[in-house]
């Protein structure tokens, strides 16, 4: 009994409840007349779409900067890359690589500045990160209106000025990863393109965290005094981690767009940090500890609930409470992580 309790404690009660809830959804699903294969496909697709944005949380948690509520800044770099790539008019798979290429310098510059800023506000990074994200989204809303874009697929038709709120990636990099290396079994299909794409970056981050620089970064996060004593430049490590997180955020949104099919501008990225933050926390990370496994488990659980609850609920009680449930579960999870004793040292 004690052993079972210990196991539950190490797994975390909220995580256990969420896992059981998701399992229950999958068990109920066939009886509610839902195609399990299609649902699994949906969950995996959402996993491929969102996993890199969740991965973007890892470097900053490692260096002790806390949860990256400033993810919208990375997303904006991605949006700049995406719009610039579409502006060139080059179609097909190349546009995806162009988008990554164009977004990289923005991500590096924004991440560098953002990292410098966070170094000056040690101890309350998360609050300030949240508002850095919000302000940058609001600032870019003005920019999307006045930047001189011309491509007819992106600009408002009747004024010829200012970008549309949503831009289709159709013809450019729509489903560029989703449709590659696709395995189909009945109603179930799995896209290895997306999964391999994620796996590559997950592996790079994992390998990086085991290099000398990566270990130094972890040391900064877990024990800054010790890190300083062993001659590690704390501010440099933290800035590096923020740049990595920002760049992964840019990459993440591009990956999201290819699956979702649209580039969302203006207020679109405002709250995009919350699902990513709560996914990694559901996966077992805390404010100052995270690894790749947390990312994978967390994204599957979070996206599983988000995609399964509406369909099951709709067919059972004919009301869609899923959006409200999503708000409660994801923010409740963040709240749980913030109020836990283990993280209170920071």
């Amino acid at each position, binding site marked *: 009994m004690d052993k079972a309790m210990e196991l539950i404690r190490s797994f975390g009660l909220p995580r256990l409840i969420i896992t059981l809830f998701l399992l229950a959804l999958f068990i109920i699903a066939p009886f509610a007349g839902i195609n399990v294969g299609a649902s699994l496909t949906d969950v995996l697709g959402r996993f491929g779409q969102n996993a890199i944005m969740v991965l973007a949380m890892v470097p900053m948690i490692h260096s002790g900067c806390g949860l990256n*509520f400033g993810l919208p800044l990375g997303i904006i770099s991605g949006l700049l890359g995406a719009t610039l790539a579409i502006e060139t008019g080059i179609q097909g798979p190349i546009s995806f690589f162009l988008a990554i290429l164009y977004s990289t310098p923005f991500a590096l510059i924004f991440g560098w500045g953002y990292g410098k*800023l966070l170094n*000056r*506000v*040690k*101890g*309350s990074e*998360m*609050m*300030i990160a*949240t*508002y*850095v994200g*919000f*302000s940058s989204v*609001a*600032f870019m*809303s*003005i920019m999307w*209106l*006045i930047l001189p874009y011309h491509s007819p697929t992106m600009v408002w038709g009747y004024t010829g000025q200012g970008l549309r709120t949503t831009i289709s990636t159709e013809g450019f990099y729509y489903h560029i990863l989703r449709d590659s290396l696709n395995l189909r079994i009945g109603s179930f299909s799995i896209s290895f393109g997306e999964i391999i794409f994620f796996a590559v970056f997950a592996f790079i981050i994992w390998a990086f965290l085991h290099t000398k620089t990566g270990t130094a970064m972890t040391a900064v996060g877990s024990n800054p005094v010790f890190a300083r004593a062993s001659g590690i430049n704390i501010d440099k490590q933290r800035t590096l981690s923020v740049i990595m997180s920002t760049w992964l955020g840019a990459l993440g949104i591009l990956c999201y767009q290819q699956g979702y099919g649209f580039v969302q501008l*203006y207020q679109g990225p405002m709250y995009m940090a*919350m699902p990513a933050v709560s996914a990694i926390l559901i996966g077992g990370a805390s404010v100052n500890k995270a690894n790749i496994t947390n990312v994978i488990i967390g994204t599957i659980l979070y996206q599983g609930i988000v995609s399964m609850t509406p369909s099951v609920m709709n067919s059972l009680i004919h*009301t869609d*409470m899923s959006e*409200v*449930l999503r*708000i*409660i579960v994801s*923010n*409740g999870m*963040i*709240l749980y992580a*913030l*109020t*836990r*004793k283990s993280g*209170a040292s*920071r």
Partner: protein
Amino acid sequence: MRKEITNKDVRNFLANNIVPIIFIVLCAVCIPIAGYSGEYLVDQIITRIVRNSFLVLSLLIPIMAGMGLNFGMTLGAMAGQIGLIFVTSWNVVSIPGLLLAAIIATPIAILLGWFCGKMLNMAKGREMITSYMISFFMNGVYQLIVLYGMGAVIPIHSNQVILPRGYGVRNTVDLLNVRKSIDNFWSIRIFADENGTGGLTIPVLTFILIAILCVIIIWFRKTKIGQDMRAVGQDMEVAREAGIKVERTRILAIIISTVFAAYGMIIYLSNMGTLNTYNSHSQIGMFSIAALLVGGASVSRASIKNVFLGIILFHLMFILTPQAGRNLIGQAQIGEFFRVFVSYGVITLSLVLYEIRTRREKAESAKTLAIGQKEAEA
């Protein structure tokens, strides 16, 4: 020597008041561009003060207790909205309606405040982000209750309030019954011309209510519990050793703030006349905090002066920018995005400046301590 000191003083003054200064400059630039008449602007500002000051004042007490900006004031706003929803569905009109709404909102606000305080005690040192997430979390619970519970579980049957499907509250609820009832109860008109048109309307009763709250806050600072809160805000450990129940004091600070926010929301909405069931509360949280910061408050220090200066400057900017944007670039949309950016930007800037200042002060005190030690050794 003398000149150096004044230079330093000027720099300190600029550094400590940079946010209000930016806003004064911004407003000064926008007033001629927008081209509104002075009378219109003053009238608008009076309306905004009437609407918002109670809400912004509710933020002062947690700051006193060292808990930072209480993003959880949204919880109080939700309680106030629930009170108003009930009153509207029961068709209670005018001031009795508002009083009843306040009576319904009070226990809800106390409960929510207690919950919020408990949570914040578990997250000492990061109260702000936690209270912010609490407001998000409770927003979900609020939606669950209002969108699915009301009409289905909680008996509300008014057609004006409930959606045609039979449960859930409408997106916008018309508060005609209580609209401006405090403001119109006793209002005087000044500077009107012979026909009785134009001029400014001053809602005296609302101003009296706001003044009473200001007096309460000033008085509260001097009471035993107010002193305790300030001690807790200064240093939690010292306060604990002095025999103050730190946790209890902190919870109390949040409860008081939440209850005031609930009353503030009722006043705000009765002035507006319509309730945006699913937006009003989260919007008001951001605007109130931004307004307080614009007035020159910081995370650890805020006064009544900051509240009023902040409301005047922030809302002046709010009125001016869309029109200024239209006149300048031909698009009101830019002005609207601009004011959203300014609201968020101001909060970011104040938070960053506060952190940098605190760190500098800490470093300086450490330096003086080191020098003192060296001298003692010598």
